[in-house]
């Protein structure tokens, strides 16, 4: 209970309400759980990044002289598994989604707070299995663990890694379940579907994919484990099984998984672009429905990862066509973001720099996806660095940029402090430069024929120059990622206190204190305005506070 005292006292908020380790480890407050996730996924991000560093170091020279071939196989496998399952998939939903979804809809918490906590514990348990697997030898199959290598031939700890991914998968399913039920049932009075922030639509679409896709890879992992233990023959050609069936089941989830990784980022970028152009999003319903369309269409295209695996050519034609179709809703979003920027009052704060980076890099990544969807091109560039560059443009240039932009945008709300804007803009620039230097050469390398997952390219020494550029870029990128870690931590202690709405942004989360109280709002909000009401927010009598942190 708060007691009114004349002297200034720190207001009670979710951070200072209770202290002590157990108040964090047993919390059901969605905001605290979001921070638990923040720490965990940052940890796994650096582990995945460490493996990336070793990969890039090996590829500095054509000869395989840093590590042995088997070790290299483990490096790219663990890099992929950690980054996909323990960083990218949870990242925005588990951190920003958990923190913001209830607040943006005017609720006190998610629908199932205890399941939310369980979700984090499952993530941690899955992570422990994965860590143990890595520390005791790792896996060498590639993150895609194709049969029959993974089921019959590899001597590495596939079942253990599989258990880790299975359990983390349930964490993902429960997060999705929580979001869907929350968005349907817990909206504040007046918060109709068409007034929801597009961040919410994006997370709703993401949750659909998490719910319907993840169980399929879960059961596939079960089959792989059974196959390894009992030699069942389900994927073993010697026993009548079909390894391509594994790929069908694997990619049925893993393709929609990439939309789990990008949709939340698109939601973040939408919020940032609206705020820093001071404009309503152009074509709200188009952006909202395109999120749902991406979720649904994303389930129709998985075999474009299998064009050369042995599927029928008719099947390949159908999946190629559908892969073109799935680009349409993403393109619609890019058009709408661009139209929002047009004639907006653009501010170049750090979140907006990340959003601009996202726009350009996601577009490049997405367009190169269309190249890959064309069967004729796919045959030549599949399993080359072209594919690696394509998905890193989307995952890193897109998803991670969106994540960083979102962290900067909502940091004042989460921590109650302002980060140093100058350093943040510098870091955004370093990330952008480092990213392009790392991955653009890889498009060229792939097109010229350098295969992926090779530790030794001494039969093509002319590729060294581009590889050196790529490794140099990776170093710059690493610096760019370390800077926010440093200044965010710095700002928690030394940053200027943030007001309720330092960006003068639209959205219910900005109508409560920074940081928010445990139950988010002192009074249940009643919504009577449309989303992105920037004209009202910028109306003349309103004195705007423009924070500049030094």
């Amino acid at each position, binding site marked *: 209970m708060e007691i009114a005292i004349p002297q200034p006292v720190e207001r009670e908020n979710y951070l200072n309400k209770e202290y002590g380790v157990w108040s964090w480890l047993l919390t059901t407050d969605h905001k605290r759980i979001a921070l638990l996730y923040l720490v965990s996924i940052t940890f796994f991000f650096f582990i995945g990044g460490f493996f990336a560093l070793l990969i890039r170091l090996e590829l500095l020279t054509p000869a395989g002289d840093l590590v042995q071939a088997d070790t290299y196989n483990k490096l790219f496998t663990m890099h992929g598994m950690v980054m996909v399952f323990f960083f990218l998939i949870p990242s925005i939903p588990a951190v920003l989604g958990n923190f913001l979804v209830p607040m943006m809809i005017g609720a006190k*918490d998610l629908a199932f707070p205890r399941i939310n906590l369980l979700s984090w514990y499952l993530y941690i348990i899955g992570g422990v299995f994965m860590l143990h697997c890595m520390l005791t030898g790792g896996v060498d199959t590639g993150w895609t663990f194709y049969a029959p290598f993974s089921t019959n031939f590899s001597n590495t700890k596939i079942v253990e890694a599989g258990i880790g991914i299975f359990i983390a998968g349930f964490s993902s399913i429960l997060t999705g379940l929580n979001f869907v039920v929350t968005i349907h049932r817990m909206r504040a009075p007046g918060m109709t579907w068409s007034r929801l922030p597009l961040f919410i639509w994006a997370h709703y679409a993401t949750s659909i994919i998490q719910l319907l896709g993840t169980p399929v890879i879960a*059961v596939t992992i*079960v089959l792989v484990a059974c196959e390894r233990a009992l030699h*069942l023959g389900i994927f073993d050609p010697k*026993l009548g099984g079909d390894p391509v069936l594994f790929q069908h089941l694997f990619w049925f989830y893993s393709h929609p998984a990439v939309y789990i990784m990008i949709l939340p980022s698109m939601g973040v970028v939408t919020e940032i672009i609206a705020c820093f152009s001071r404009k309503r999003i152009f074509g709200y319903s188009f952006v909202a429905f395109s999120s749902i369309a991406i979720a649904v269409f994303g389930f129709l295209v998985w075999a474009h990862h299998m064009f050369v695996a042995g599927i029928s050519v008719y099947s390949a034609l159908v999946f190629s066509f559908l892969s073109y179709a799935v680009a349409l809703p993403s393109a619609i979003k890019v058009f709408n973001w661009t139209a929002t920027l047009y004639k907006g009052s653009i501010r170049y704060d750090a979140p907006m720099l990340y959003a601009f980076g996202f726009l350009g890099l996601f577009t490049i990544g997405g367009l190169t996806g269309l190249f890959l969807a064309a069967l004729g091109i796919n045959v030549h560039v599949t399993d080359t660095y072209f594919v690696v560059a394509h998905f890193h443009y989307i995952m890193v240039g897109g998803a991670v940029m969106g994540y960083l932009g979102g962290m900067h945008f909502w940091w004042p709300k989460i921590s109650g402090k302002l980060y140093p804007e100058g350093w943040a803009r510098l870091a955004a620039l370093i990330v952008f430069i480092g990213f392009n230097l790392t991955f653009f050469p890889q498009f060229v390398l792939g097109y010229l024929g350098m295969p992926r997952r090779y530790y030794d390219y001494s039969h093509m020494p002319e590729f060294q120059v581009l590889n050196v550029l790529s490794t140099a870029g990776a170093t710059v990128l690493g610096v760019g990622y370390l800077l926010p870690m440093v200044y965010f931590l710095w700002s928690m202690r030394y940053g200027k206190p943030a007001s309720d709405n330092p960006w003068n942004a639209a959205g219910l989360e900005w109508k409560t204190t920074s940081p928010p109280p445990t*139950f988010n709002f002192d009074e249940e909000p009643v919504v009577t305005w449309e989303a992105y009401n920037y004209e009202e927010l910028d109306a003349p009598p309103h004195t705007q506070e423009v924070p500049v942190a030094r």
Partner: protein
Amino acid sequence: MPDSTLVGLHHEEEHHPELLHHFATEEQQRDASSLGMWVFLATEVMFFGGLFCAYLIYRRLYFGDFGAASKSIDATLGATNTAVLICSSLTVVLAVWAAQTARRTLLLTMLAVTMLLGCVFLGIKAVEYKDKFEEHHVPGASFSFNNVPIPGHPGEYANPRHAQIFFSLYFVMTGLHALHMIIGLGIFSWLLYAAWKGRFTPEYHTPIEIGGLYWHFVDIIWIYLFPLLYLIDRHP
């Protein structure tokens, strides 16, 4: 956790003891729980779905071998188990009705009978598994399926490797289903205990409803498993 900082909808009314603090009304809580269980069941559809996908593909590829393998499992036991689960679904629905109409004894009885029927199901399954083990039809080192005729194709014998795929899918699918039954028994034992303690009333019996949804779902999975696994080709 104190709510006193809030001026919300619910602090004026009497709190139902089962109302959780982050919900405004009991109806919201009930609707959220119900939607949550339905969404979870959707995920379970996809979980089993992967196995059904593998099954359908191999059944089409190796129809004859699958027919021979299917014929070797006991269809009468399978049909009996189907009937057992159907009866248990009835008792579940009666349990929900009992909770809705404040019939405590009936509620407790129906919950207990449901669990009993679940145990009968698992018992029959155990018998079936034992039979398969004795006939060396369990995939693995001691699997053997030689000289088994393909139904409808006199003179042709099933390929043991393809038959092993059938049995692999049989054990994984029925095993996963049995695991879900066991979890269901766990859920129902909690429901039975809570009902015995008097936690459920006509106003609040959501756990029984959503536990029931789970049980019906497990029944539906078996409704499909029975014809697919046991009745591929039963002709002499």
